[in-house]
């Protein structure tokens, strides 16, 4: 399994420090899925992180690819004009990732051939509550991804993350 919480913490702290200015675009490609079944939820989880880093809600998403074929991509356009381009594929026992966050005055890059394993969450702690919240948002995003893949068109989202 994967664990992007440490990455998230460092990215969030760096963005909060303001060195790169307002975050505007997230480009994140990961070969991290252990099987085809977890591709959509992983992609939705990546989307949740992108939303955190961009401090915004997507107004429209467009998904391409095929979970059966082992690859998915997701384009997100946000209310405030930011955007993200995410992609997930199978790790094939060789996980890797490339992340770029473009800010108005600079950029953050992270390329790694090692995607850290997920730690066991502590029951009842803030991590679990955060996870429950994430599960809710990722389930809505998975539904939106499914709809976009089926329709082969972008899907508009409400501010609550529901399909508009």
């Amino acid at each position, binding site marked *: 399994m994967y664990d992007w919480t440490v990455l998230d913490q460092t990215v969030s702290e760096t963005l909060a420090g303001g060195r*790169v*200015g*307002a975050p*505007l*675009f997230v*480009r994140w*490609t990961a*070969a991290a899925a252990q099987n085809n079944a977890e591709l959509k939820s992983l992609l939705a989880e990546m989307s949740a992180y992108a939303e955190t880093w961009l401090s915004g809600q997507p*107004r*429209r998403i*467009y998904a*391409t*690819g*095929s979970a059966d*074929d*082992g*690859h998915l*991509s997701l*384009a997100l*356009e*946000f*209310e*405030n*004009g930011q*955007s993200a*381009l995410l*992609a997930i*594929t199978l790790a*094939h026992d*060789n996980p*890797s990732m*490339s992340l*770029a966050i*473009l*800010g*108005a*005055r*600079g*950029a953050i*890059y992270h*390329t790694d051939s090692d995607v850290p394993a997920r730690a066991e969450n502590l029951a009842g702690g803030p991590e679990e509550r955060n996870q429950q919240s994430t599960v809710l948002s990722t389930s809505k995003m998975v539904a939106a991804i499914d709809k976009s893949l089926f329709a*082969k*068109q*972008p899907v508009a989202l409400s501010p609550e993350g529901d399909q508009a």
Partner: protein
Amino acid sequence: MSSQQLGVLLISGRLTHQENYALNLRADPRCQLVGLSDESDVPPERTQLNRQFAEDLDIPYFPDLEEALARDDVHLVSVCADPERRGRIAARCADAGKHVYVDKPMTPYLSHAAAAVAAIERAGVRSQMFSSNHQAWVQQARRVVESGAIGELKAIHVDNLFSKGPNGTAKLGTPRQAIYPPVISNFVDAKAELYAIGVYALGFVCMLSGRAVESVFGSTANYFFAEHQNRNMEDFGFLSLTLEGGVTATITGGRIGWASHPAGGANQIHLIGAEGSIFLDANRPRLEVYANDQPWTPPEINPRDPMGFWRTTQDEVNAQPKRTIASLPSTLESRTDASYFIDCIFEERESEMNARQAAYLTEILLAGYKSAAEGRVVNLPLLRDDDPA
């Protein structure tokens, strides 16, 4: 000029990519620069820049393009005219029986692209649009695909983001309202960057996949520069493509500012195969060098070229190269794009980036702009009624 040399006519000079292409052509012993010309009705400023570049190269300036194209000692024309003029000039060169080397993209107009392709194929001359397809790291990606090391290709993700220009001036907070047709012109302080830079990434996708693009979703933005925003031109954009056989691709293209990368920019390819994936970066493998010398600083802004588009204007402000990253040379042979084209001419074979392929990339780009403006996926081919010409 020997019988084994091609005489080269340049069209347009300073403050165009001719500043680079002419030097690469001159460096090839199979070429000899014959002169420089342009259309007779260009603005006086353009004529002055053309004359200056002819003087820089110590070659004659031919004020009449038709006379220049009629010369027997001209075999090849390097066309770096403004984007709107490029396609029609390429067709004129082919009609005159000359091989055509054209700046990228070849044209923003479907009708001009079709006319250029028809003229070139009718005349039986060779053609090539400038691309980065022959850079060693891109050829390495091609070898990975062709080797089968990652299995059947499933997806490609490409970034071409140039770290030039004084970023941090764009007004942020709202989505860009994209328009179709897009504004495609080279202003002193702005270009349509998805068009001008994204074309490289599209070239990679088409070469590496060998598949046709079926549909395009596009998005454009004004993230970095007030100059682009003021001219209603994007400084950044991305495309999400569906290709034949369910292969997908995403590309980014844009200008992200001097401070946003330790080298020339984020130029990378992520190949996804059925049996594995691989990440290639134009700046890897590399050395990273840190020292107690003065840190690199962006060049002084040249009012004639505030975004750092051109070599001569950056030389005027003594722009210095970034020095943190020293990329290791590839073991693969690295050829200039121009020399690859000269090979094609002498070996009597088509360039993989010939006018027909260049026209195809124009169509994909326009589909992306149309998608961004209309907020929907656009299928190819485009209706010819959609031609912005």
